[in-house]
């Protein structure tokens, strides 16, 4: 900060190459540590000097120059914009065409950091013609280079469908799919994340990814020992399954649901989140698929997640997924209710209602899920415990369900009385003429007068 950058600046134009190179390295490390230093580096106009002589330099210099660009552009979009405006992209393309794998790695890492921030920067990177070169980089034998190229492609394609389409047009999918069975864990992470960023934008892209025959191989990734490989693999499956019922059907037919469920079982924490969302999306598509999820023993892990996890968004996702499973027909709602998960959801909802300041996502989703399940649930033993604790808006649905089932089923009526449900119903005060009152009247009409009093 004490004028270091200004001191280093003239050294960049020194005659001896090793001095230039060490200066560049120093600048890169300075910019790497701190945002302000990076801004100073940019303001001091070092970047044009760094890049102007790049084509003639040797590979160590190119590597360190790429390192400096990367260090500067990683902090914020404005810095990355400044880097792009200096004309760094053409130089990075020259570096990408170089023969040394280290230089290519540095260049693609810098491109990845630039493209990460927003859509315009990614578009600029693509316009400079980076994508075919990156696809060539992926095919190189060095693993580090493959990793970085895959992560750069993932950063480029995550912003918009057009960018993803550009990446697909360069035949990236085939090469990425070939690298999934590779034993290196970090490479697998990047490849899976790249494929999931491509697949998430539209149905056609997802279908293209599926056609690259990823499917049985991706399931083996779900058994990998590295947590993030599992997470990215499940994210890929989620992005594929969420578009249409046919794609979800495909995933189910290939046994994807079982693998995802096992994955949820074996992990803890945020790694579970994409798996839960996958189950939710698959179940939401149609009732057959929801039944398939139930048959593959999907409900117990979701209940466990709901109870055990402390993070708000994971609980919200689990509640949402259970709601999607249970909302189709009475049969589905029965399976959900049998798993004894409704009291837990009610607890979550009640917990957050008491502390009104936090409008937690978990409570919102729990309430919606409860409502949708209760509207179809005819399994009375599960509804009974809820009668005693529920707040009025939930109670209305519960009583509604009772009033639908009790007139027809005599055994249920007897049970209702013996478990004290009828007494509870009498205690409820409702405005006359409201829906709740009608339900209560229907229930009361099922029983002879003496019992009601």
């Amino acid at each position, binding site marked *: 900060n004490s004028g270091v950058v200004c001191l280093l600046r003239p050294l960049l134009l020194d005659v001896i190459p090793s001095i230039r190179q060490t200066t560049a*390295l120093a600048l890169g490390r300075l910019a790497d540590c701190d945002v302000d230093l990076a801004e100073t580096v940019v303001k001091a106009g070092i970047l044009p000097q760094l890049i102007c002589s790049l084509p003639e330099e040797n590979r160590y210099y190119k590597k360190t120059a790429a390192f400096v660009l990367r260090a500067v552009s990683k902090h914020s979009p404005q810095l990355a914009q400044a880097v792009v405006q200096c004309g760094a992209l053409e130089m990075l393309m020259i570096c990408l065409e170089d023969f040394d794998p280290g230089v290519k790695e540095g260049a693609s890492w810098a491109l990845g950091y630039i493209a990460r921030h927003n859509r315009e920067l990614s578009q600029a990177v693509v316009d400079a013609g980076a994508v075919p070169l990156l696809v060539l980089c992926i095919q190189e034998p060095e693993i580090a280079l493959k990793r970085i190229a895959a992560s750069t492609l993932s950063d480029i394609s995550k912003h918009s469908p057009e960018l993803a389409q550009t990446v697909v047009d360069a035949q990236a999918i085939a090469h990425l799919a070939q690298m999934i069975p590779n034993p290196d864990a970090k490479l697998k992470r990047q490849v899976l994340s790249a494929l999931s960023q491509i697949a998430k934008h539209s149905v056609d892209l997802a279908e293209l990814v599926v056609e690259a025959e990823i499917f049985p191989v991706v399931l083996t990734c779900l058994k990998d020992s590295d947590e993030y490989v599992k997470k990215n693999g499940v994210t890929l499956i989620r992005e594929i399954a969420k578009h249409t019922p046919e794609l979800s059907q495909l995933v189910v037919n290939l*046994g994807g649901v*079982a693998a995802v469920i096992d994955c949820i079982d074996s992990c803890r924490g945020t790694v579970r989140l994409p798996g839960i969302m996958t189950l939710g999306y698959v179940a939401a598509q149609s009732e057959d698929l929801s039944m398939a999820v139930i048959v593959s023993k999907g409900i117990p892990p979701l209940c466990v997640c709901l109870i055990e996890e402390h993070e708000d968004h994971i609980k919200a996702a689990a509640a949402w997924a259970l709601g999607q499973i249970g909302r189709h027909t009475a049969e589905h709602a029965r399976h959900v209710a049998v798993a004894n998960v409704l009291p837990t959801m009610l607890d979550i909802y009640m917990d957050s209602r008491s502390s009104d300041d936090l409008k937690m996502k978990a409570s919102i989703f729990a309430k919606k899920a409860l409502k949708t399940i209760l509207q179809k649930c005819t399994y009375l033993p599960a509804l009974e415990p809820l009668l005693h604790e529920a707040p009025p808006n939930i109670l209305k649905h519960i009583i509604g369900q009772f009033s639908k089932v009790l007139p027809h089923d005599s055994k249920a009526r007897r049970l209702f009385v013996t478990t004290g449900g009828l007494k509870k119903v009498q205690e409820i005060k409702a405005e006359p003429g409201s829906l709740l009152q009608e339900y209560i009247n229907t229930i009361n009409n099922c029983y002879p007068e003496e019992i009601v009093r």
Partner: protein
Amino acid sequence: YFYIFRAIDEDRKIKYKAAVKIQSWFRGCRVRAYLRHLNKMAILMQKWWRGYLRRKYFRETVETAYFIKKLNFYNEMAVRIQKMWRGYYVRKYIHNFYALKKYLKAISVNNAFVRSELQEYAEMKEKEDKMKDLEKEEKEKKYQARKMHYLLSTTQIPGIYNSPFRKSPDPMELLLRKSKPLTHRKQQVKEGKSLVVYELYDWPTCKEPPAFVTALPLLPIDRQKPQGPFRDPAEVLWQRYKPLEPTLRVAESRNSPPAKARERPQREEWRNPIHDNEFLPFSSYHRIYEKHETSLRRSGKYGQEAYGTKHFRDVYPKKWIADKDFETLFPSIVLFDKFGKTYSSTGQIV
């Protein structure tokens, strides 16, 4: 008389009135009978007409009732057919319960299969990892054994691992017996050199600078210093351990896609050219500017001559400056004359 005439007049009046009454009564009866007759006729006609109308109407109502009955019957039958068809259709195509059941069973079977496969895969990976660890340990042990070869037991002195109180020697002893002794020096130098080379060529991240020649391997201490006029050793070492900077042609691997892509059109170009001598000069060029070179095979005075027409042993007296040959100007040194010609050991060069 008046009274008789009045009585007769009154009689006549009474009889007149009676006659009138009787006649009116009779005429009235006749008219009444006639009206009755008319009435009866009218009733008869109306009776017949109304009967006819009602019978016609009745026939119509019967027909419509019959028609409606038929329609109802057909409706019912149609409903029955539609009921059966719709039940069949829904059960077969829209919500096929048994197909769904079969599908779910198939899914659970498939899931079980996938789970077992994945389980196997996970186990296989674990085994592989364990094998790798074991192999690493083995390698370590073997290396240690090679290093500690001196701990092997001799016939006189039992080694550490071959205690006389044990029934059979320790496995380490057996390893020691099997292993070839390790020479330290070569190993160290080789390691040192390979470290330098490794550092310079291993570029996973750009965090480490190229270790230029600051980390040179240490030379062994008792190395004999070679004799003679020498350059600065640092310079020499720098030159000797300078890293390889291959030309671009060499650095690019022959199997990489750009090289292969370049090779194909090159080969095609080599194969396809139309002209072998491009940029031929004008047709009479060779007559004026180029001299005809006879081929080597046929040139030469005596036919085939060896390649290279210059004969170094030829003598060209015309080119001589002086007539005489080289001659020595100084007397030779006797001692140096004996150099290399005597056979005694004193003359030998040390």
